[in-house]
């Protein structure tokens, strides 16, 4: 019988697994773990179908699934260190997808990641590969230096919307335009998380942030930047896609796109950038599951998902 296995002490109590389970197998426990968080109990194991949705949505790799005598294992693309992200923040999901891809592709030991400034500034503690920490916005310049110096390495950057699309926009456009053979993971959560919820270049029109307390006024701040569409106007071949991590199927698609992005690098084909639309429950002032719904309802109409440019479509 399939069974979700909860690593209680990794759990931050975000409840995303409880909401993701189609069979309502999980329920929040009245008890708290060592960190002070409520955690899910497997309340109706007999209803579990082994779909792994709980595992897919968990930002803290706190869920594994046992099925037919086999148990899923945590990827060695990540270190054992628990992330410092807020409960329910989808950064953790994106970390896991990247970690799984580099591990499954067998390139973990030749990969160098670049951590940005922002919520993922400590990403070097979480990815189980060589890492460099870059100054704000310069991750792609740093990645360019690594890749040009060591073309045999697999180089990725992991950047947020402020880092990539505001302070680092010049580095973004020019790394893409030079066709650097690097993979960029761009986390778009429409807000500045680390500094406390200020307006991002991707904050939606009317969306409230601490530096646009009455909502983003497009007459003053302009419209949110659609990064992949903008980069797609460059003639240089690239793989550019937008994915999301707000629900299990989207997460599976996100992983496929990330894998493709690394493949294009490893095959020396082109620059690749995957924009991952994600949530910031703390910055948005929402429960994690509400944030996933808000993302679907408000962000996806403005930031549509899908491949925006593939290398063969160079024009």
């Amino acid at each position: 019988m399939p069974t979700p296995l909860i690593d209680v002490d990794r759990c931050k109590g975000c409840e995303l697994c409880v909401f993701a389970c189609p069979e309502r197998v999980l329920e929040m426990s009245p008890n708290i773990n060592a960190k002070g968080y409520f955690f899910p109990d497997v309340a109706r194991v007999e209803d579990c179908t082994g779909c792994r949705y709980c595992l897919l949505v968990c930002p803290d790799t706190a869920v594994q699934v046992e099925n037919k005598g086999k148990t899923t294992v945590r990827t060695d693309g990540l270190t054992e260190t628990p992330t410092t992200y807020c409960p329910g923040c989808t950064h953790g999901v994106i970390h896991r997808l990247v970690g799984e891809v580099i591990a499954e592709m067998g390139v973990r030991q030749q990969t160098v990641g670049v951590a940005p400034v922002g919520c993922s500034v400590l990403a070097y503690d979480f990815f189980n590969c060589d890492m460099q920490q870059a100054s704000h916005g310069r991750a792609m310049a740093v990645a360019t230096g690594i890749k040009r110096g060591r073309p045999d390495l697999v180089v990725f950057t992991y950047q947020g919307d402020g880092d990539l699309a505001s302070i680092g926009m010049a580095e973004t456009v020019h790394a893409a335009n030079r066709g650097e053979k690097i993979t960029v993971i761009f986390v778009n959560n429409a807000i500045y998380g680390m500094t406390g919820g200020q307006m991002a270049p991707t904050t939606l029109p009317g969306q409230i942030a601490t530096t646009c307390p009455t909502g983003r006024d497009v007459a003053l701040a302009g419209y949110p930047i659609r990064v992949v569409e903008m980069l797609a106007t460059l003639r240089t071949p690239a793989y550019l896609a937008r994915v999301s991590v707000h629900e299990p199927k989207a997460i599976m698609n996100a992983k496929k796109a990330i894998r493709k992005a690394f493949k294009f690098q490893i095959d020396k084909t082109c620059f690749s950038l995957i924009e991952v639309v994600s949530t910031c429950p703390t910055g948005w002032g929402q429960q994690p599951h509400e944030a996933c719904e808000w993302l679907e309802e408000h962000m996806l109409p403005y930031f549509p998902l899908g491949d925006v440019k593939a290398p063969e479509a160079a024009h």
Partner: protein
Amino acid sequence: MAKKLMKGCEAIGEAAIQCGCRLFFGYPITPQNEIPEYMSARMPQVGGVFVQAESEVAASNMLYGAAGAGRRCFTSSSSPGISLMQEGISYLAGAELPVVIVNIMRAGPGLGGILPSQSDYLQATKGGGHGDYRVLVLAPSTVQEAADLTMEAFDLADKYRNPVMILGDGLIGQMMEPVEFKRRIEPEDLPEKPWATTGAVGRGPNIVNSLYLRAEDLEQHNLALGAKYRAMEAEVRHETYRTDDDPDVLIVAYGTVARIARTSIDNLREKGLKVGLFRPVTLFPYPAAALAAAAARAKHVLVAELSMGQMVEDVRAVVAGRVPVDFFGRCGGMVMTAEELAEQAEKLLAVPA
């Protein structure tokens, strides 16, 4: 290798190649464009990489990546561009990455002008960007010395895991002199850098980083950097000219001005005046002990610079009031003549000490 007539900028570029550097990242700015131009032609010939960055900010961060991946790399720029690079230089110093940065100084502030200057002395020797750090600063006075010091800069950068700056001015960069490259090192013969991000094979991940969120940890890091900067004092060097007879006036000058001073001194010596030169070659660390000793035997110290007076602050700190320290500077891209400088020295001798 036979001597070759080269511009200072080209000699710096070739010296980098001769000592195993195969990566250049830079952005054009006058008066050092000959360096990126030379590198763009030469790097492909030796299997190296030339990247014209989108900005000096990006160039300094490309250096960070390449140096962090264990490769010798360098950049060049001129004053306003070096200001833009200070972001990267602070991170390079914080993450202890070995790189070489060439500043062919022009006059400022702001956009200033494109003519030679020494007005970035304080920026170069006192840190330049944010945070407690220093870079080793070497100041060539001839094209040959520019080549020699560039080669040495890469070794010093590796030795101390620290950025090293070659501080020249538009004259050194643009003038042509015969130059000889005294050694040749292939990149594969350079020592391994076990701390670099080269792929975590047979070891745990290496991390290149300047972030220390715990104050206790950052203080320890600052203390370790401080100890390293003190250890660099082993590298101090200077040159003297006509100081054997304890001159009455000791001119202190570096780079181009030191060349001018030599002519002034020769002319004054012909008149029977005892004038000599102390030329710091390392500007950080500063050759303080040697200067203190030389100054103690003089009646006057005259600091000459192409600035409003920057190095003179260090000289005054070293001399500590034991001998009067005077200053003569031209700025804005104006370069003093040997006669002008001689006149200043002569004036000092006319006044009873």
